[in-house]
């Protein structure tokens, strides 16, 4: 159950809005925009054929609206003071980090920008409606998960349970301890679909190869003798950018020869609360 919302500003200050505690003078009356964001599905229609053909689909950004009422004690605070206090954190154009706590534990967070902060002064029941736009439709876990393992020359897989509800890319880091010319990252999802990404390129002991499959951050970089350079061309053009999918993912990094250590780092994404 959602128990608390925190608003963290760029300056590092935090506004805490517990849902079951009004001692600070704020009453969280409603929060909308926490459910999965609606997708826009593009499709083609044919003049003489029933139905449509899918083209693509995408989700818009997330619009979270916080409605906060006031519960002043009129001894140390009043409505005007509380309203001004909120303004310090939630002025329009402010960039904030929203943290959502489930049963007292930080569960997910999302970056957002305040679109509006409407607080009518002459109202019977004064309240503030804050509209925030989160450019990423997904909430993300507060901490990334790092999986450490070694390449294999067999079909042995490593199970990685992914708790998120949205597919997510990851940062793969290969720590070469010997010469290596090619390897392939496989992911067999819970539904049995296998995705693979092949890398072809000369690596020597001491090299660190980093492949990021996260949308918007895709790329491959090689750290060799302390110099970093893009080696995107090493990623086979017919490869897919492997993602983790909800459920148990079975990853395997296949390379001939002795084991080479690697890490996989990801941040779980949640499409809704």
């Amino acid at each position, binding site marked *: 159950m959602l128990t608390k919302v925190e608003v963290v500003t760029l300056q590092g200050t935090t506004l805490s809005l517990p849902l079951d505690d009004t001692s600070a003078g704020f009453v969280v009356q409603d929060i909308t925009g926490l459910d999965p964001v609606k997708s826009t599905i*593009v499709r083609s*229609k044919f003049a003489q054929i029933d139905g449509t053909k*899918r*083209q693509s689909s995408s989700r818009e950004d997330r619009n979270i609206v916080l409605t906060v009422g006031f519960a002043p004690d009129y001894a140390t605070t009043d409505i005007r003071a509380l309203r001004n206090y909120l303004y310090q954190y939630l002025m329009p154009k402010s960039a904030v980090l929203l943290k959502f706590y489930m049963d007292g534990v930080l569960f997910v967070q999302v970056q957002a920008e305040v679109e509006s902060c409407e607080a009518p002064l002459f109202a019977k029941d004064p309240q503030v409606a804050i509209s925030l736009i989160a450019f990423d439709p997904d909430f993300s876990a507060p901490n990334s998960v790092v999986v450490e393992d070694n390449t294999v020359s067999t079909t042995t897989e490593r199970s990685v349970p992914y708790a998120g509800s949205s597919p997510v890319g990851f940062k793969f880091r290969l720590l070469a301890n010997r010469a290596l010319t090619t390897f392939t990252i496989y992911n067999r999802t819970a539904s049995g679909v296998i995705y693979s990404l092949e890398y072809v390129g000369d690596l020597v002991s001491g090299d660190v190869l980093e492949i990021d499959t996260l949308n918007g951050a895709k790329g491959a970089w090689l750290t060799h003798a302390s110099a970093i350079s893009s080696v*995107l061309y090493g990623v086979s053009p017919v490869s897919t950018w492997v993602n983790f999918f909800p459920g148990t993912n079975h990853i395997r990094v296949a390379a001939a020869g002795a084991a080479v250590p690697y890490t996989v780092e990801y941040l779980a994404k949640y499409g809704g609360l």
Partner: protein
Amino acid sequence: MEFFTLDNQLRRIAIFDMYESLVWTERFRLAGDFQLEIASDRNSRSAIVPGTFCTVDNTDRVCQIDTVVDTLNSDGTRVLKVSGRGVEAVVLGDRVATPGLVSLTATPKWDITGLPAAIARKVFTDICITKINNASDGVPFYTAGTIFTAGTIAEPSEEITISLDIDSVYNVLVKLCDLYKMGFRLVRNADASQLYFDVYTGDDHTTLQSVRPAVVFSPELDNLSDTSELTSVALQKTVAYVMSKNGSAIAYGIGWDAASAVGFNRRVMYVNADDIDLVAGAPLTAALIQRGKEKLAENQVVIAFDGEVPQFGSYSYGPNGDYDLGDLVEVRSSDGLATNMRVDEQIRTSDASGEKSYPTLVSELLITPGSWLSWDTLGYWNDALGDWADV
């Protein structure tokens, strides 16, 4: 669609998958081009600069970024508007097709005799490989050979003599390919730092053959939408009067002759060939007729077809897909009329409204003189000349 910038070895170096819109066009007889709109930030501004080569996924074509406009709109959005042309136009457009660096006291010409495809290859080879004009005229990363299997459509087999004015290699190739239904390309071999040049005619994917799988576009087959078909005779000419300093000649368009190009079918155009200064005789007549045919080829019946193929439709485009540029495909209208058309252009778009692929098809009904198709549709058997040959 993923947009890649390439390094100075023509290898993918950066990937951009978050942009506002990307239109990537590949063409059979012309160089392709692209337009990209992407958020202007430090990353995009540093990687997307004029002169950088680029490509997208599922293609072997390369473009060069030639224009970057960094716009700041009144609503605060800052967008890089990027455009560029295919490497064919960039490299071959900057090479001069001439058999040697000579003075202009006499009008310099490059007279070549041979098959059209061989002439196209000779022009490229002499200028860019043999480098007859300058040792620096070569094409970087050019690799001899091809990465494609031979097409099933035969190259034009009629030997011609062509007299080329000084022009860029690109313009010469475009002119030749346009005239003789060929295409040319300068393609990248993955990340191997290789460019291959190819003059090609494509594969036959119509139902009239059984070598390649048939590709049939039809609204009935649920694989074609938003179609538009253009047929125009507005610019059609059937006869050319070609005049030069030392003589004149009459040329007929493909499928026409002195007997058929009469009455309302006689659509005459005048061709000024004062740059042909051969003395009167057979070579002059041949050169004038060739010039007339070239001009008539630019004034044919126009039959063009536009349609939108769903990205997840029954056919995929590309070197490893069901059809590629230059291929002959079959288009059937909703009333069953079938037309064989050539894939002349493929436009791939990706924006907020989805990712789509649009082929532009042109009619490619090649009428050979003497074939049944060349007969006047209003002719009568009794008027036919000649005798039946034994078969």
